[in-house]
């Protein structure tokens, strides 16, 4: 169980990450701020508290794997990878530029720390399952974490994968659904209804937890509980807010795939600076 000082440190880190995410997307002139901000608390908990990994040795065979199935939120991942030491943070300012280490969607051939390329929705999750199978086959103790979008869960392949993982009892696999309720053009429930989402996972025989995905202590304990589960894969349905942390971005569909203008960025950074870490929940 994490101590409150550790939680506060994670919260402070996530607040800094929010600022960097928005800055690098605005610098790039395009990208996906909404889904990056909804996922960043989860990613922070994974990389700075929960996962077993070694930035100095990104090819360590026993490292835990992270697959960003909702690949468009990669700015959140890149910021965490840079802070962890996988590459020089200076690269963050080249996001989406020609020749950059940091592509618009994750590219395992370019970015240290990225173990699977993704982009098209609904498929990274399957690759995460392949990694979990390989770990089991080789008798390795690493775990695999897959971050899914809720909108992404409209892809049928997500449910093919969910069926497979429980059939094979892959308890070295944890999925986290970033349940921010929005997709590119509207509310998920208006575009193609997902609820009761947690019940769907239960019906697929996964160990299900539903949490507030911005409550750092809760994220940390949910990951620990998932890791302790035996015999079946685990899913954390994390209720989140798209654009979390910036009042005029939160819950706004238009910020799915649009960079903040420099003026908007300034206001957003001021808000984030004024708010105490973790106060948003």
């Amino acid at each position, binding site marked *: 169980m994490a101590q409150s000082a550790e939680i506060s440190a994670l919260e402070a880190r996530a607040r800094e990450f929010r600022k960097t995410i928005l800055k690098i997307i605005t610098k790039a002139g395009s990208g996906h701020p909404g889904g990056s901000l909804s996922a960043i608390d989860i990613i922070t908990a994974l990389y700075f508290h929960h996962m077993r990994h070694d930035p100095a040795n990104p090819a360590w065979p026993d490292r835990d794997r992270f697959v960003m199935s909702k690949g468009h939120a990669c700015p959140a991942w890149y910021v965490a990878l840079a802070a962890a030491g996988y590459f020089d943070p200076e690269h963050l300012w080249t996001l989406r530029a020609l020749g950059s280490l940091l592509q618009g969607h994750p*590219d*395992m*051939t370019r970015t240290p720390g990225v173990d*699977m*390329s993704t982009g098209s929705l609904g*498929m990274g999750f399957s690759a995460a399952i*392949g990694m979990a199978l390989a770990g089991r086959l080789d008798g390795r103790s690493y775990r695999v974490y897959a971050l899914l979008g809720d909108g992404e869960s409209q892809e*049928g392949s997500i449910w*093919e994968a969910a069926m497979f993982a429980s059939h094979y009892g892959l308890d070295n696999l944890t999925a986290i659904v970033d349940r921010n309720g929005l997709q590119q053009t509207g509310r998920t429930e208006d575009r193609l209804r997902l609820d009761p989402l947690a019940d769907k996972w239960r019906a697929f025989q996964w160990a299900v937890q539903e949490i507030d995905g911005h409550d750092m202590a809760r994220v940390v304990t949910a990951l620990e509980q998932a890791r302790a589960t035996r015999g079946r894969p685990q899913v954390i349905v994390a209720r989140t807010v798209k654009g979390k942390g910036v009042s005029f971005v939160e819950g706004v569909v238009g910020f799915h795939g649009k960079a903040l203008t420099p003026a908007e960025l300034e206001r957003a950074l001021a808000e984030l600076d004024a708010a105490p870490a973790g106060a948003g929940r």
Partner: protein
Amino acid sequence: MAIRLAQTMASKATRDAYGEAILQTAAAEPRVVALTGDLRDSVRLEAFAAAYPDRFFECGIAEQNMAGIAAGLAACGKIPFVSSFAAFSPGRCYDQIRVLIAQPRLNVKLVSTHGGITVGEDGMSAQAVEELAMMRALAQMTVIVPADATETAQAVMAAARHDGPVYMRLGRSGVPVLFDETYRFMVGVAPVLRDGTDVAVVACGIMVAEALAAAETLAAEGISTRVLNSATLKPLDEQAILAAARECGALVTAEEHTIYGGLGGAVCEVTAAQHPVPVERVGIADCYGESGTPRALQEKYGLTAAAIAAAARRAVSRKRPR
């Protein structure tokens, strides 16, 4: 070096050769694993599943997930062989192959059986006649269509040794055994099976046997016909094809696929750009198949030695007088 053709009337389906070869490959290479989607019998993986239960993954009828799982296995050092019907893989999982396998150049071997129109009675939905174009369009993908059981066995082992994604198309029905044990398949090499000077037939898969038969017919008419086995569609053996274009002056392509984007397309791309000569494409026109016996379908859709011979005559007649 001349290729010695098998002196036999034996017939064997390339999928049967795959089932045997994957066992040998797995014995030699512990990283090999196999996946299928409820088709372990049809794709001839039952023996593999029995011999290597830990290395065999039944994925159910869910090809998208199967392709993605293969990518994850490859990213952790495995050499996954993914087998389904060509209509379903790549038919049902093209974008997974594109984003998760081809783009990161992961070491996945997509070996699909039941390719082409000779699937037969199951009809057009089961007959993949366009998937070679799909796979050839993917950068970093190697595309192989073996001509017979001997070549299939070697190609399976070559695919396992090859570092990078491979698509291999195999057939359901028995086809003549063309090559004996001295044959050596190499990725990217199109050997000359029969030399000739008036026209060259560039064939793959079941059409190689038809091409050899056509060459006999043409010889009787005084047309000297070279036959190339272009089992590797990508990377194409451009040297062999350009040599044939230069030395024979006219080409025929022959494949169990539409005439768009497969071997015919590949040969035209190379010759048009580097050494234009008349090219006649034998293959399926801009249409789909139907139910029927494999042989009846080959006759109706023009996938025969007679169709190749007719195309060769047309190609020769189009040659400019020297």
